[in-house]
């Protein structure tokens, strides 16, 4: 309730004052994605206001897509704190851009065909490739969903423990037969399908960055391929162009 500050002596309408203070708490991150707001009734009773005033304030914030009413559950913050990621440092998030993330691994497999991916690895159907999929989360923000493809020819002995315990850069740099030399990223705007939307706790049809990375060794072989699906609106990719 301390997120709502009112001054009844001011000329500014009460509902606007509620909107102002909640908007400020959301933009500064004091209120975060998924936080529950007090019910309209609770606010009325505590602040001695009429229901219409509080309803009007919440309606404005709903229209701005900062909050959402879920029937039977309450009103929740839907806006997320923006995250800025320098493009060239994307894979160094823990050490470089200062957003500690938790990673949850949910698929580890060895495959010998995937028509959407093998051409980017210069691989033919029948050759073995490790694949693992994970979701990285920063606080309440789902940051990205990632699929990592490591051809057995370059990463002969990847295990599920490596995929669970080691961050991607450690795997790329220490578990292969050659070292990464350069990376080529390919960015495309997409809308989320159901599975990815659920994982990233975003609505179906929300926008996303599709970031696909080819990792090359010094002989220009593609030694790894990574697909990241990153929420489009609140993850800002930064680049300085000279």
């Amino acid at each position: 309730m301390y997120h709502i500050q009112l001054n009844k002596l001011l000329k500014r309408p009460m509902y606007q004052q509620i909107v102002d203070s909640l908007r400020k708490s959301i933009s500064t991150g004091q209120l975060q994605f998924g936080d529950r707001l007090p019910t309209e009734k609770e606010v009325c009773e505590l602040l001695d206001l009429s229901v219409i005033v509080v309803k009007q304030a919440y309606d404005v914030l709903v229209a701005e897509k900062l909050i959402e009413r879920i029937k039977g559950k309450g009103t929740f913050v839907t806006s997320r704190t923006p995250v800025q990621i320098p493009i060239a440092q994307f894979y160094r998030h823990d050490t470089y851009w200062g957003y500690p993330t938790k990673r949850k691994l949910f698929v580890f497999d060895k495959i010998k065909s995937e028509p959407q991916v093998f051409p980017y690895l210069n691989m033919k159907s029948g050759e073995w490739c490790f694949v693992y999929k994970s979701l990285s989360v920063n606080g309440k923000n789902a940051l990205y969903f990632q699929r990592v493809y490591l051809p057995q020819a370059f990463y002969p002995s990847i295990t599920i423990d490596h995929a669970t315990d080691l961050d991607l850069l450690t795997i790329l740099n220490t578990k292969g037969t050659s070292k990464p030399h350069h990376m080529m990223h390919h960015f495309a705007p997409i809308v989320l399908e159901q599975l990815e939307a659920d994982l990233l706790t975003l609505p179906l049809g929300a926008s996303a960055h599709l970031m696909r990375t080819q990792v090359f060794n010094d002989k220009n072989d593609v030694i790894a391929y990574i697909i990241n699906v990153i929420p489009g609106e609140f993850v800002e990719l930064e680049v300085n162009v000279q």
Partner: protein
Amino acid sequence: MNKEILLSLKVDRRYGLELGLQVAQSLRNLILENKVHYNEELPPARELAALLEIDVSDIEHAYQHLTREKVLTERYGKYIVSYFELVNRFHQKMITLHQAIEQLGMTATIQTLIHEVITVNADLALRSGYSVGDKVLRLKRIYLGDGIPLIIYDGYLNLKVLPGIERMIDAITPYYPIIVTHYQKKLGVSKRKLVVRLLPLDVVDLFKVPKGSPSYFVSSSLFSNQNELLEFGESFSSPNYYFQYEHLAY
């Protein structure tokens, strides 16, 4: 269209997918691989059916399927490739939008929608780094490639640093050369932020793409090598616009 390319369309009767969809899938791949190009006309269904030795209705089915996906369009009974994918390295090195389009092999043209001197308000000040009350030249422009709208750009040029530029810019020419030659400014760095948004309705109409299409929304601040803010801009690009970025591994 090259017969060899058409013969690479693979169908397999033993495979569980109906033949029309198989043709659609491999035709889509040829288009994505840039082997069949934008604006190219596909052979009549009868001709392709004879070549692949399958029923003409399967080819018609494939063409109609790809038309619904907006990969093809039908014009006077002929099917033409309407999909194009624009990939470039626009965010790797400083080039103008005009140059970026030309690098894609297209003829670049410009249309100006808004050209006016305005006073910065609180909302723009918050987004741009200008101060409330600053005078800027607002230029809203559409950049087209081969006549197709590719980028809509809303720029705000700093009149404190570039006085009088509103009288030097015409409606159809890139203006960076004026900044460099007339004002003797050396371009320093362009700081950009990229998010993906669903296109607003007016832009959807402009790009002639389905409602709910995603697009890169870029905010950029261009500084001179003396660290003066020369221009702040915001742009949407066509949903077919992709970009690449390369760097050394770490």
